[in-house]
């Protein structure tokens, strides 16, 4: 079955394309929410810098696989994000550090592919893809940095606050999945 590609905003100028790419991330929860969850996971596993290569690999793989990605990948991305967020909420500081790279690569690949699925390599301006990648990086880096800053102190409430945020994110993801599966 042919995949139904997402429609995006105006891309007549490079700036418009860049902006549309960046804003597209916020429109599709199957892309944004898993990336936020990943940011929290990385916050517990040494930060983004340790997984920089995996993140870049995920971004590249996501773009490359997008033309072949089925529409159902959005659901897979949401489920992946749910597992990641629930993992942070339930395990917190007990998350294995070595899990960061595979989790980062997989989550980002699913998220980017689901956003750009069905788009041919020549159908989107470079500026748009750059906007998507920049926003995706921000969506991972910002929560990771915030979580990292919170975790630096010794107070018990610090990791707790990150885990509560992850719990709320899990709940939002579960609701979004249910909405997606709801019979119309």
């Amino acid at each position, binding site marked *: 079955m042919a995949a139904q590609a997402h429609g995006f905003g105006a891309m007549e100028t490079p700036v418009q394309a860049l902006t549309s790419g960046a804003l597209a991330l916020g429109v599709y*929860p199957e892309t944004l*929410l898993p990336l936020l969850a990943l940011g929290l996971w990385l916050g517990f596993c040494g930060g983004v810098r340790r997984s920089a290569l995996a993140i870049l690999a995920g971004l590249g793989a996501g773009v490359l696989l997008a033309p072949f990605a089925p529409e159902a990948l959005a659901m897979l991305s949401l489920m992946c994000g749910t597992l990641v967020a*629930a993992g942070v*909420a*339930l395990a917190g500081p007990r998350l294995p550090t070595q899990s960061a790279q595979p989790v980062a690569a997989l989550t980002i690949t699913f998220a980017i592919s689901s956003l750009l699925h069905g788009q041919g390599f020549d159908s989107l301006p470079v500026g748009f893809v750059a906007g998507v990648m920049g926003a995706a990086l921000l969506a991972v880096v910002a929560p990771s940095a915030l979580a990292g800053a919170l975790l630096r102190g010794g107070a*018990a409430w610090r990791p*707790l606050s990150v*885990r*509560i945020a992850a*719990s*709320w994110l*899990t*709940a*939002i*993801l*579960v*609701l*979004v*999945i*249910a*909405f*997606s*599966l*709801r*019979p119309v």
Partner: protein
Amino acid sequence: MRRTLPTLLLSLTFALSAVAAQAHTGLAEGGFVSGFTHPILGWDHVIAMVAVGLWGAFLGAPAIWALPIVFPMVMAFGGALGILGVPLPAVETGIALSGVVLGLLVAFAVRAPLWVAGLIVGIFAVFHGHAHGTELPSAANPLAYGIGFVLATGMLHLIGIGFGFLTSSRGGRIAVRTIGALIAAMGGAYLAGIA
């Protein structure tokens, strides 16, 4: 657990005298505001959420953080069942009963093991979530609604935990246990159909 038996007996008394509570009105819109106001406009929901925080505070670490982490996730699971139209029996009774049971647990300062506390809270969370999911407006914007819904629920827990910190003083403990008794009474009123 020494006060579990009287608590359970009281809960059972209320449960056996139950009629369906009618506290949910449903909302016409489906965005952030709708999601945010849904949990806080029904008092039967509010008292249970606050009671979770209060009980967590009474139980101390690790329950104080475990319950507010577990509850939203399990409630969202219940919400998903409701959204998908999966039937769940006696939802309104379960919601009202949650106020009674959680209120009594706070009022009697019951010290349950973490897994028991998690199980009790988890079961009630499914009922609360299912009610919310079932009443969801069909035109809901999933992301905005979900964010509003979860934020409101989480804030109610945090309010409960905030009040729960009063338990560090003797007077505060009495105040919190009194709040627990009031919550149980309100839950009982919902169960009896007089609220």
